[in-house]
């Protein structure tokens, strides 16, 4: 078909396909009239810009991961990700969503890399996640007589599980220190991630606290479970941690959660 009769849909399809291609090949629908610049060289500007822009976004989002891998290695993997993952996001900041999983597949012998990346990703998402009113001690005291009520976490709260000393590595990088040698942990740990004020926060969780937070997220009630489909948090914890004074431990946790601002003022009965 002569290019003069080309339709807009064909042009946009061809242009997009050209930018996603494994190499920039030029196109006959580009005018070469000005300055002797070839169609290939003109298209190359967009071809390269697409890749550089997305690699830059990955560098920005996965800052600690990039430092850990070093520029060359990170850029190589990031370019492979860009080539194999066309963006489907309006918000370019979301482009790295599948990058931690991609790293896990690409670097099966270096699992700490994907753990670092997942932590980078979740911290970034917490940064501009939804706001909510934080529960105060006064809010909690008002509800204290109603044992059947459910706690709610702030919307930015999330967790991730680490099997390696990735948290130590992340902290060392964050403090411009040499990261420790990677080690597999004897037992996996859960990391809590959320936003307090304007700043993303994180900390490791003891097993019982991780279980308690999982109960809160699942909708288990605080006390009386009459009419509820789920057991109370206390019941779950007593079953899973029979050697622990659950009532005391849960009280300590609740105070910490209030201090950390991980509970939302939203509650229901």
């Amino acid at each position: 078909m002569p290019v003069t009769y080309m339709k807009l849909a064909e042009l946009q399809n061809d242009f997009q396909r050209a930018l996603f291609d494994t190499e920039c090949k030029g196109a006959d629908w580009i005018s070469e009239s000005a300055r002797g610049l070839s169609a290939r060289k003109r298209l190359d500007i967009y071809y390269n810009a697409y890749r550089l822009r997305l690699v830059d976004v990955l560098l920005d989002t996965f800052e600690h991961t990039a430092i850990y891998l070093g520029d060359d290695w990170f850029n190589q993997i990031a370019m492979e990700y860009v080539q194999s993952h066309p963006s489907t996001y309006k918000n370019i900041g979301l482009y790295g969503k599948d990058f931690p999983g991609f790293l896990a597949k690409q670097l099966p012998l270096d699992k700490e890399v994907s753990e670092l990346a997942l932590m980078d990703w979740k911290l970034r998402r917490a940064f501009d996640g939804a706001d909510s009113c934080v529960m105060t001690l006064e809010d909690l005291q008002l509800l204290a007589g109603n044992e059947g009520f459910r706690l709610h976490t702030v919307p930015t709260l999330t967790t991730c599980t680490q099997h390696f000393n990735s948290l130590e590595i992340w902290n060392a990088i964050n403090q411009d220190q040499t990261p420790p040698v990677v080690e597999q942990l004897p037992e996996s740990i859960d990391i809590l991630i959320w936003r307090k004020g304007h700043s993303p926060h994180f900390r490791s969780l003891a097993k019982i606290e991780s279980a308690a937070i999982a109960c809160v997220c699942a909708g288990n009630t605080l006390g009386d479970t009459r009419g509820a489909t789920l057991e109370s948090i206390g019941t779950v914890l007593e079953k899973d941690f029979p050697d622990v004074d659950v009532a005391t431990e849960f009280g300590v946790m609740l105070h910490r959660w209030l201090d950390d601002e991980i509970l939302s003022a939203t509650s229901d009965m």
Partner: protein
Amino acid sequence: MTTGFGPGFGPGFGLGLRTQHYNDFIAEPQPVDWLEVISDNYMVDGGKPLAMLDQIRANYPMVMHGVSMSIGSINGLDKEYLRKLKILEQRVEPMWVSDHLCWSGVHGRNLHDLLPLPYTQEALQVVTRNVEQAQEVLQRPLALENVSSYVEYEMSEMTEWEFLAEVVQATGCQLLLDINNIYVSAFNHDFSPTSFIEGVPLDSVAQFHLAGHLNNGDHLIDTHDHPVCDDVWDLYRQALLHFGYVPTMIERDDNIPSLPELIDELNVARGIADDVLNTKIAL
């Protein structure tokens, strides 16, 4: 925070709000008449971006400038994007809302670039349909910015400025004329920047952008990481002579200098406008 022009010269001179300058704008009043925010950076659920936006908006008029509407996409506009844009527009209450005359991807893919359109009757129909849809949601005219481009299409049937004039005529939209983009595209495609300026409808221009670019010898790249160059300042003079006063801002997206340095550059724009427009009035 006033210009030297008096009340007849509108909103004055602005800067693009960048995260590096949040604290400067919060700490004390700055000699900037208004701020342009990148809409997409604030179409988020919450956190610091929206908190800073609200705090700074309390003291500065704002305009909203988007980069992802893809007004020339054959697939039409993303309704969810428009919904979020409207929510932000209601929050910011901007003087105007702009995006680019371009397309950014089709069939659910996003190229995150401002890709030029072919200037054809068919593209005009697509853009007209999409601008009308955006204006229906926003309930206000959209301002469309001319993009820097590195390709022209064999299929184009008219010039870029003729196309812009047709879009304005068909939709009642406004234009955001990026003086640097005119300069970059004119160099890359060997057309007269003066023809561009003179070809745009006189009363349609809501805003000027000024920015820097990278000179690669046989082509220019719109990088927004350099100060405005002398040739672009000259073109700004021409634009002022042709259009009269138009709210003007410096757009810097990379290699971002300190706020005082940007304000110095903005004051160059003020000085040029003062000089050109007072001379024009005197004539």
